[in-house]
């Protein structure tokens, strides 16, 4: 058996979002295989590297590192432990024992943008990002394209919560930003902001507007006002890393997961099925197919740092 481990980023494994997705993945892995996964939640920069190093020392492999913040620590430790397999989610490191897993968030965001536009009565929708970084702009840009695809003259109000890591964990500000967007006419808001999103969904609930979750399927958080979630299958990524390692198929290098690979998607479940009409569902399936077969090309913000599509 393998001896897998995971290191969450500083938001912690219960952020209801990104880290929690990974957590769900490994719980499933443990349930399916009976193999325990060693978890670690460092609380500061120094501990990230310290914990990675200690896990490596103790022979844990593969070690999944969650989040772009881990990149520099993983790259340092991976150098010192060439025999240990590292998988980093959302970061790219070019080293022989590191697997980099990234997602085509723009495609998933496009999808939920389409759904948002279909549900907006005011033709104004909102986007609340977490930390202002290219990755989050990538979400925003994909979303905007999706909205405009349905309603070309729609307004997309975009706000970022902040410019530091704290922006992923500030529900108060999330709620204020959402309220300010509602007051400007938005009636659907997409939060790509980690824990900050909780405040956004709450505000939507309180004001009777619709919200779109991110990363994990967050539809259950505010049933009735959660239109859908843009799921980014980090759970599947983590699961797959362990599964491959178990089977001896783990390979270093870049892995890009998009719609076609099932890496991103929109969520439809019991919590939001009341909000989704059959028409909408059909349209969503059609758009999805077009993206997969290349008829719709969604621009990736990170490819040129602009949102010109």
């Amino acid at each position, binding site marked *: 058996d393998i001896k897998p481990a995971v290191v969450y980023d500083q938001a912690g494994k219960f952020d209801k979002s990104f880290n929690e997705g990974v957590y769900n993945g490994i719980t499933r892995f443990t349930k399916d295989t009976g193999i325990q996964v060693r978890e670690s939640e460092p609380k500061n*920069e*120094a501990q990230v590297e*310290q914990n990675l190093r200690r896990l490596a020392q103790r022979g844990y492999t593969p070690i999944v590192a969650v989040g772009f913040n881990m990149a520099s620590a993983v790259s340092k430790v991976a150098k010192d432990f060439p025999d240990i397999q590292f998988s980093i989610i959302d970061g790219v490191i070019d080293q022989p024992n590191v697997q980099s897993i990234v997602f085509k968030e723009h495609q998933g965001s496009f999808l939920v943008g389409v759904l948002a536009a279909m549900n907006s009565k005011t033709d104004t929708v909102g986007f609340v990002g977490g930390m202002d970084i*290219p990755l989050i702009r990538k979400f925003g840009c994909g979303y905007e394209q999706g909205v405009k695809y349905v309603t070309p003259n729609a307004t997309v109000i975009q706000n970022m919560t902040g410019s530091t890591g704290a922006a992923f964990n500030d529900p108060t500000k999330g709620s204020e930003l959402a309220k300010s967007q509602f007051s400007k006419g938005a009636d659907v808001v997409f939060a790509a902001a980690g824990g900050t999103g909780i405040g956004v969904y709450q505000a939507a609930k309180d004001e009777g507007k619709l919200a779109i979750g991110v990363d994990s399927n967050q539809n259950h958080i505010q049933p009735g006002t959660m239109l859908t979630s843009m799921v980014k299958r980090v759970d599947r990524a983590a699961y797959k890393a362990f599964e491959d390692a178990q089977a001896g198929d783990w390979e270093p290098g870049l892995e890009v997961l998009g719609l076609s690979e099932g890496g991103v998607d929109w969520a439809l479940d019991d919590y939001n099925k009341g909000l989704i009409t059959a028409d909408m569902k059909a349209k969503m399936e059609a758009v999805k197919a077009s993206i997969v077969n290349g008829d719709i090309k969604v621009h990736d913000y990170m490819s040129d740092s602009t949102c010109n599509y």
Partner: protein
Amino acid sequence: MSQAKVPVWVNVGLIPLLNILLAFFVSGLVFLAIGQNPLEAAGYLVYGAFGYDAGIGYTLYYATNLIFTGLAVSIAFKAGLFNIGGEGQAYIGGLGVGLLCLWLDSSMPLIIIAPLAIIGGAVFGAAWAYIPAYLQARRGSHIVITTIMFNFIASSLMVYLMVNWLKEKGMMSPISRTFQESAWLPYLHDVFSPLGLDIGNSPLNLAFILALLGCVVYWGLVWHTRWGYQLRTVGTNPTAARYAGIDNAKVTIWVMLISGAFAGLVGVNEIMGVNHNLLLNFTAGYGFAGIAVALMGRNHPIGIILAAILFGALYQGGAELAFEIPSITPEIVVVIQGLVILFSGALENMFKGKIEGYFLRRAAA
């Protein structure tokens, strides 16, 4: 009249010891409250902190920061000033170190960069302490409040600079480019390994030696120079200081500059010694922990070193503990730290009156 005196060992030994024991006892209760065996937890703590080479290295690495901030808080205390701004001064000090490294790393060797960066960290830290010091000295603004405000201002300033100016292109999070190795302060394990000594891989670096030097400087300065004499006079009796022709304002400003400089040296350890790039939040509460260190170290360099090592051990041991028992968070160390501040700082008189009374009566009898 009898000249009853409380024995020195009571004041510097017994009473502090009792206070700390009480803090640890209450910490033990916290462990019990969360269903952990305090002794087992203590076992992990001690093993993590002192049980193996790298553990000791980490302990001393944390202690390095705490010595700097402890000295910073303490020397200001000596002048009767409460510098709560260590956090901000350390932050800005780190900025100074980082800027110098970013500027010089490709053109200069370590032997030139290191002293310059040390001076840079000290100067930036001192500069950040200067404004509250000036306002205290010349306009009577309460330094506790102004230094708290300056912590917030430093934090916003750093975010602004990192995000808008210093961030490396293409990086997600606001961190600068990594310095070239000419701007890395050598790790102690790298220093020792040519001597055939293996002390384990840890972030412990030459800044630790700098911290010890800082203690010597503190000691000489405070107790053996006229400046120190003036400083202590201002701290214990400002009116007498004025009577003695000492310029209180000048002393206040100077001591805060030195205090800020000590705090700024945290940047040398963190930025030049460990991270090798500029980043956010590397001060991680060391400025506040410095208060506990200074209090527990009784404002004496030896005490500060011991207290810093104790706290460093708690940090490192706490990380080990949280690593081994995932249901414990390293934040428990913050609780212990707070309890130490409470019992050996705020409640220092709890036993003092009774114990001193006992010894006085015994002496009088």
